[in-house]
């Protein structure tokens, strides 16, 4: 590594982010929506998750495990009848949406009260998903044909070069070299174990694998995912806070709990569009089959229909998994060289490439330098737009009464031409927010959002002073995991049409973090950064620092479908577990 890049990398997140604390939110109680429901009113059309539903949807879909220690078990069916028996055994171990919601609710209150980043209670959770070949093995080819998502039916390996992965088999990143999910190494099942300690995760994974081994389910590949340590907790390996921006899922449970709590005062012009400020509310059918999904034009009403899927897939969710190796030294060497050419420091330039500073503070609200206070304010760090000055937002009374002092951080200014946050900045590429896109109005962008559930793997290099050559060379990256209702219209759309394009959603170059290109063998990419005078300066991406090394397209069925339809092969919906 070059001196400047290594220096910048070693110095990342030397200081911790001061998290909000001292905020006491009232215990959840039936909000206005639920009260309206009890009065038999339509309640603003909020989709309802009844107890049978929250007991059936897997908890890593909604609200997401978000645990520091995870194990990804890529499994293969050796014996179909054995696999059915194993599914019957596994189903009661799967974590439901309700179980994870209950945990999250308490942890959220605890976090706001104390600023803690770790929960004081622990839980170990399990999720299950199966691939297209597994659907065919368990239910037959016709059942696979009935899955509406054609990309799922094809599988990740078949779609690899469509995503920009290398077409040349001699290149690193070509599917022939993948650890799992390549042409000959496609997994049938993906089991995710999430825990609060590595030992807990390992222990549960072992039990699952042993039971699999007894039932003709073999392990193809296992990957440990570990949150990065210390101040880098929640960051990816380049050193940037990850997962800051997630859509809020519209919906209310029978207890009156909103899946995405509303923190904007009802008089705020955007109160019906956002949960937290800057967190768009998206209809749940974008992530869970059979729920009301997003209307292409109007974010406030559901689409006319819920989509097409076989009965057993109801309340399930497609899952994209990509094992992405990250060449951290290459990224920072580039940032150092480019920053010298641009006339700034490596961290600033790398932040322009990402659109956020390492802390997670958006460049749009902190153009000059990182802002740890902003980063630590979870109600503010996602509140920004690109095309217009971002207005102040009004917190709901319960948040103010709970102790939130309000969002007093510098506001984002209109940035129509990418003077502050480059058009190619990663977060602007994959979520253009309020801007128009090549597919139209910002309402269309809400059709593209995913629920991301990724976690890093491999030893941390960021923040390490004088790392050994072995540590520098060690493999590290991200297990990208995302849930959605359409792989083609969400994950593939954002990857191919936006990240990999120099002109979409806005002209200004390729996504310099995750963008790929492979046009007639040419993998050349570039992106533009505006100089202070407004001139677009082009930077050629002369090396690649994110490389696919495995993964798969999967489907995470409802828990009842695991114990029922998949385990028995029977037609019709499986039994629904009782709530609680």
């Amino acid at each position, binding site marked *: 590594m070059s001196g400047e890049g290594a220096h910048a990398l070693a110095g990342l997140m030397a200081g911790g982010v001061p998290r909000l604390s001292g905020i006491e939110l009232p215990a959840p109680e039936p909000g206005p929506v639920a009260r309206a429901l009890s009065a038999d009113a339509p309640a603003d059309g909020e989709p309802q998750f009844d107890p049978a539903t929250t007991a059936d949807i897997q908890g890593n879909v909604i609200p997401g495990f978000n645990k520091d220690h995870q194990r990804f078990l890529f499994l293969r069916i050796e014996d179909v009848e054995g696999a059915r028996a194993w599914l019957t055994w596994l189903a009661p171990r799967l974590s439901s949406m309700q179980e994870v919601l209950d945990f999250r609710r308490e942890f959220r209150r605890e976090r706001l009260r104390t600023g803690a980043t770790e929960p004081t209670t622990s839980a170990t959770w399990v999720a299950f998903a199966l691939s297209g070949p597994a659907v065919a093995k368990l239910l037959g080819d016709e059942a696979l044909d009935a899955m*509406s998502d*054609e*990309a799922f039916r*094809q599988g990740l390996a*078949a*779609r690899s*070069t*469509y*995503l*920009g992965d290398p*077409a040349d088999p001699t290149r690193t990143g070509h599917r022939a070299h993948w650890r799992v999910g390549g042409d000959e190494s496609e997994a049938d099942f993906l089991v995710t174990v999430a825990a609060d300690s590595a030992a807990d995760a390992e222990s549960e994974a072992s039990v699952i694998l042993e039971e699999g081994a007894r039932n003709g389910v073999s392990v193809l590949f296992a990957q440990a995912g570990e949150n990065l340590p210390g101040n880098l907790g929640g960051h990816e390996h380049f050193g940037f806070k990850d997962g800051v921006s997630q859509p809020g899922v519209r919906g209310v449970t029978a207890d009156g709990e909103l899946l995405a709590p509303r923190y904007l005062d009802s008089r705020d*012009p*955007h109160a019906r*569009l956002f949960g937290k400020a800057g967190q768009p509310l998206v209809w749940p059918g974008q992530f869970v089959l059979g729920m009301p999904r997003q*209307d*292409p*034009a*109007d*974010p*406030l009403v559901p*689409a006319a229909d819920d*989509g*097409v899927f076989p009965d057993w897939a109801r309340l399930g969710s497609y899952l994209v998994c990509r094992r992405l190796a990250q060449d951290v030294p290459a990224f920072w060497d580039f940032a150092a060289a480019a920053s010298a050419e641009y006339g700034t420091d490596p961290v600033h330039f790398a932040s322009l490439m990402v659109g956020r500073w390492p802390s997670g503070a958006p460049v749009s609200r902190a153009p000059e330098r990182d802002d740890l206070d902003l980063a630590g304010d979870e109600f503010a760090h996602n509140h920004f*737009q690109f*095309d*217009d000055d971002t207005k102040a937002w009004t917190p709901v009374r319960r948040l103010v009464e709970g102790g939130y002092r309000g969002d007093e951080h510098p506001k984002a200014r*209109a940035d*129509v*031409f990418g003077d502050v946050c480059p058009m190619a900045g990663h977060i602007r590429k994959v979520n253009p*927010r*309020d*801007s*128009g*896109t*090549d*597919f*139209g*109005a*910002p*309402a*269309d962008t809400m059709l593209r959002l995913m629920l991301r559930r990724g976690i890093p793997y491999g030893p941390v290099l960021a923040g390490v002073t004088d790392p050994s050559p072995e540590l520098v060379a060690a493999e590290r990256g991200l297990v990208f995991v995302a849930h959605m209702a*359409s792989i*083609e*219209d969400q994950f593939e759309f954002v990857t*191919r*049409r936006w990240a*990999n*394009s*120099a*002109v*979409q*959603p*806005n*002209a200004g170059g390729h996504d310099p973090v995750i963008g790929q*290109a*492979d*046009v*007639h*063998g040419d993998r050349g990419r570039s992106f533009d950064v505006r100089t202070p005078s*407004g001139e677009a300066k082009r930077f050629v991406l002369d090396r690649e620092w994110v490389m696919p090394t495995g993964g798969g397209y999967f489907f995470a069925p409802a828990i009842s479908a695991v114990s029922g339809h998949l385990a028995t092969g029977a037609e019709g919906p499986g039994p629904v577990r009782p709530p609680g």
Partner: protein
Amino acid sequence: MELVRFSAPAHLDDAGRGSDFPDQWHDLVSGLIAASTEVSGRGAYVNPVLHPVRRDRERAITWTGLSRPLLMKHRDDRRAAYAAAESRDVQIEYLEWHVEKVDGRIARVTFTTETPEYWMLLAEVHPDAVLALYRRLVSPAVAEEDLFPDGGEYDPRNRWNTTDGIVHYVMPINSMGDLLGVSQESEPSQHAVDGYDALPYSRATGADARINFDVWAMSRQGLSVATADPPGLYMIGWDDSGWTKPDGTPVGDYWTIERGARGAALRVTYEVPAGEGFLVSDIRIGGRPIEFGAQIAEHITMSAHVVSGAAA
């Protein structure tokens, strides 16, 4: 800040030296633009022929060539969207195409972004040039009578621009007038504070929404906006990564720009060179065989270009 003199799309020179066609084209386009139109916000859309406009910033407004309305109508069946999109009458995103088949299999697809206004004016001023261009672009068999029935006016829906070929738009709301008209539309409420506030947006097309939202955003910043010169609609690029030959290897560059230039193409054909030994239908996009021209159109990015600056 000089006044603009509009050039032909992609600086085409179909009329030759000494013709007054360029002057007439300039007048025609200028006539399609109001002198100055309130858009949404403090800025305005202006006619740069009549009002000097600062050209501080240029912007490529981009969208996708395949009909967004059809993709939304067939959210769960993309093949149905492709099939429906083959009719010129629904190719609504300012990109139209014509498919040529051999034994029922696609051999060539021709894409155009050329406007009827341009061809109708050219036919009026230089009918011989129009006939020659049709013969060169579509077929040597084109007869004058086909284009100018009964020795009269040019018929834009002639067989060589509909059933037997393609030269310019025929879909009723694909035109220079529509592009410039959409650009001058004001946001319905006229006081949206941002892009979210302008929702719901009632039109389903990608192009109209894109043009509206981009122009409105600039206008809200107090910028005046004008069409860049030359005004027009272009194919700014296409993405054939992940397209494979029958042997699974990546396709070569099978695109031919017949009018316009790379980055600003007006007419493009997609056809496998004879020596390759297979047809377009044998190509797979992300593992799926090409059955429709729409599958190619989906990977073509369209553009229109504007300039903007502080309002005068």
